[in-house]
């Protein structure tokens, strides 16, 4: 089963890279772009076929390694 994990900075945590992207977009003439947040996308294939179990495993992976929950949130999508 394919699992997709999105890791983003928590709301309220300043994202200087997102800000730089926002300024660059504005410099290219894209007006009205706000609140750009940069994150990570991680895709993995697991042997587990039960969606509940796969999601639980992915959740543990996120807490232990894939995300730093001090500053980041994560979202798990089953593919």
């Amino acid at each position, binding site marked *: 089963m394919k699992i997709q994990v999105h890791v983003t900075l928590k709301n309220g945590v300043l994202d*200087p890279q997102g800000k730089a992207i926002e300024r660059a977009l504005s410099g290219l003439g894209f007006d009205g772009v706000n609140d750009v947040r940069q994150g990570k996308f991680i895709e993995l294939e697991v042997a587990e076929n039960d969606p509940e179990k796969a999601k639980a495993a992915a959740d543990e992976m996120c807490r232990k390694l894939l995300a730093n929950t001090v*500053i980041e949130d994560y979202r798990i999508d089953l593919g």
Partner: protein
Amino acid sequence: MKSAVIVFPGSNCDRDVQIALRRSFGSEPAMVWHGDEDVPDADLIVVPGGFSYGDYLRAGCMAAHSPAMREVVKRAGAGVAVLGICNGFQILCESGLLPGALMRNAGLRFVCRDVHLRVENTETVFTRGYAGGEVLRIPVAHHDGNYAADPETLSRLVNENRIAFRYCDMGGDITEDANPNGSAANIAGILNEAGNVLGMMPHPERLADAALGGTDGRAMFEALAGKIAA
């Protein structure tokens, strides 16, 4: 007194630390490869700077889960002094030995220059060679040194006197201009609850010998070697 240095693929300050320890401890530090769970007995374990595992995923995150670090976490729990410098600080945060996280510098640039630090707590095995409020000149060299923690953690660090160093100007004033990376409360180094684990972004080993242009870092290694009375 015995010391050890954990060496990861991508460490690049391990030999500078080795030289500083050799000089202050008067004995050869054990250089321990990250894959080795067999960390020799030591009074001090240093997690050095560099770019362990190429900073993959997050700075320090891969190294935090290495076999040697699992042993370091156990030793820290048993009261052994653990010093994390730069990438070592990031590794200690990722391993859970220290609270908070080190984010990308607020200015987005790699910062490599001397900064000034004010010594905030001299009641530790790391800092008792310094005077309270003393201003040190120590280099930083990092891209991810922007210390972040939730407000509760930050107030605990303040209330429990666990901020060891803050970035300051030459006169010792804590100002926004003196903050090289956007760290909360100008934090340059913090202690764990028991006071036996210190993580700091600046590099004391890089100014621990007059030949390197300064000796402000040396008192930390001398204190850790037991050469400065408690």
